[in-house]
């Protein structure tokens, strides 16, 4: 596949440069999956900046004020949420298709169908979202990711799917 095929010109140049800049770390973490997929409780983390209506939105205005810094927090999204229950707080994507159907970025209904058909064991009762435009990953790595890990562990999640946007 050409991984840059569907990117507009500037995004393509930046993503290519970032991919070349990143050096794979010497150590990569690894937890084996010790049970078949059909017995796993699965949760998802979307990077689409999804916040439940009524929860604090990801900080759009702060990014408009300082375009170098995106909101590096996280939010919970109940597995029952649909597009009308949430806001999409991500300024780098066309939100129209997501506002029509949340499944394009957080396929909670599709995951429940896979559970009903026995492909996975169970869909977790909630999923999570971060907002993917983070240039300085310090807070993401030191605060957000450990907190997400703790939430996932509290839910006895066996497998996590991270979904890009």
């Amino acid at each position, binding site marked *: *596949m050409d*991984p*840059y095929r*569907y*990117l*507009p010109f*500037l995004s393509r140049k*930046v993503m290519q440069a*970032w*991919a070349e*800049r*990143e050096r*794979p*770390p010497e*150590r*990569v*973490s*690894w*937890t*084996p*999956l010790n049970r078949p*997929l059909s017995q796993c409780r*699965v949760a998802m*983390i979307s990077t689409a900046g999804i916040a439940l209506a009524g929860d604090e939105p990801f900080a759009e205005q702060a990014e*408009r004020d*300082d*375009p*170098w810094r995106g909101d590096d927090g996280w939010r919970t999204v109940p597995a029952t949420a649909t597009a009308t229950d949430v806001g999409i707080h991500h*300024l*780098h*994507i*066309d939100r*129209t*298709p997501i506002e029509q*159907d949340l*499944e*394009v*970025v957080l*396929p909670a*209904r*599709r995951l429940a169908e*896979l559970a009903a058909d026995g*492909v*996975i064991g169970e869909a977790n009762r909630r999923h999570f979202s*971060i907002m*993917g*435009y983070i*240039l300085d990953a310090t807070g*993401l*790595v030191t605060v957000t*990711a450990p907190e997400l*890990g703790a939430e*996932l*562990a509290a839910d006895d999640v066996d*497998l*996590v*799917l*991270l*979904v890009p*946007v």
Partner: protein
Amino acid sequence: MGLVANVVEDLGIPTICLSLIPPLTRNTGAPRVVGVAHPMGLPLGLPDHAAQQRAVLQAALEAGAAMTEPRSYTELPFEWPERRSQAIREPDPPPPIAQLLTSKPWLLPKLISGHLPDPVR
């Protein structure tokens, strides 16, 4: 995304990263990466295309679950059903950083290098 995956794996939970830009995700050290050649903003497929969304989700989970060692990578065989010009959907207005770089293009190297300007006060 790979950075988050590493932390979660360290806490004892296996992860699979679906990726639209596999070279970038793989270079961030993601343990299990499944690439799909879909446009930005539409990782699972088109809105209200349940069969497409489900096929991608199931394939990603099955491919990731079958991986047995760190830095594994699989590319899903799906082809996007639109022409490239249709598939690229840009936000309106453009992202703040794109607006800034349009007016101050000399800042582009900062975006690429990651040496960011000091926070605005």
